[in-house]
C-alpha cells in the first residue's frame, strides 16, 4: 500500500471503473457460454475472463498492484503449489482411465454372476 496523502476521490473513481469492468465481463461470460456452450473455445474464454476478473479484484480491491515484496513472495509460492495441485489429476489421468476400465470389468463380472 502506498504511503503519503490519501487521494479518496481518485480511489473511488478507480473502484467504480473496476466494478463496471467486472459487471461487463460477467455479462460477456454468460453470453459466450450460450454461444459456445460445452465447446473447448467456450471453456477457454470463460476461464480467461474469470482470470482477468480475479486479477482486477486482486490488483485494485486487494491493492496488490502496490503491495510489499513479502506479499508477492508468499503469493508466488502459493501460485506454484496451486498450479501443481490443478495439474496433478491431469498428470495422473492414465491411472484414472485404468481405474475406470477396472471398475467396468468388475461390473460386467458381477452382471454375469
Amino acid at each position, binding site marked *: 500500500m502506498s504511503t503519503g496523502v490519501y487521494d479518496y476521490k481518485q480511489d473511488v473513481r478507480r473502484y467504480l471503473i473496476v466494478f463496471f469492468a467486472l459487471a461487463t465481463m460477467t455479462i460477456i461470460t454468460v453470453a459466450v457460454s450460450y454461444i459456445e456452450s460445452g465447446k473447448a473455445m467456450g471453456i477457454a474464454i470463460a476461464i480467461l475472463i474469470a482470470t482477468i476478473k480475479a486479477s482486477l479484484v486482486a490488483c485494485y480491491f486487494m491493492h496488490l498492484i502496490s503491495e510489499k515484496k513479502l506479499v508477492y513472495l508468499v503469493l508466488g509460492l*502459493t501460485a506454484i503449489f496451486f498450479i501443481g495441485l490443478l495439474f*496433478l*489429476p491431469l498428470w495422473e489421468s492414465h491411472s484414472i482411465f485404468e481405474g475406470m476400465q477396472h471398475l467396468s470389468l468388475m461390473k460386467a463380472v458381477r452382471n454375469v454372476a
Partner: protein
Amino acid sequence: MDTIPYTVQARPDTGLYNAKLGVWLFLASEVMLFGALFSSYILLRTGSPSWPNGASILNIPLAMTNTFVLITSSVTMVMAWASLKIKNLKKFKFYSGMTLLLAFIFLIIKVFEYSAKFHHELYPGTSTFLAIYFTMTGLHALHVIGGIIVIGYFWGPGSRMWLIEPERFTNRIEVVGLYWHFVDLVWIFLFPVLYLL
C-alpha cells in the same frame, strides 16, 4: 510466553504490519483449500464418461445475480475502508452495512437455489456433478457466513475501537476487506466452472 506485538505501523523487516502478513498467509492456505476442490473437480470431470452442462441443471440467472451482488459487496467493502482513511466513521458504517446487506442477499438467493434443487429431488448423492456443486458452493457459503460475522462485529460493537485506536481499527478493516475480496474472487471462478461449462 511471548506474544506477537500488535504493530500499527509497518515493521521495518517485513514492510507490513503483523495482521496484514497474517491474513495474507491465511489467504494462501485458503487458496490451497479451494485449490484442492478445484483439482478434485478436474479429476472427477476428466474421469467421468459423461458430464452434464451446468446450465441444464442449475439456475444461471440466479447465479449471475449473485455474481453482481458479490462484486457490488466488494466495492462497498473497499469503500468502507476508504471512508476510514478519510476519517469518516458515518460513511464507514453505511458502506460496511451495505456489505452486510449484500452478503445476506447472496445467502438468501443461495437458499432459494438449494431449496429448488431439493424440491426437484436433486441432492449431493444424486450425481457426481451435484456432489462437487454442493461441496464447493457450500464451503463458499460458509465463508460468506464467516465474513458476515466478522464484518457484523466491526460494524457493531467492534467499531468502538475507532474512538480509542483509529489507525488500528482502519488496519483491521483492511484485513477483513482482504478476506472478503478473496471470497468474491473464489466465486468469480466458481460461477463459470460450475454453472456455465
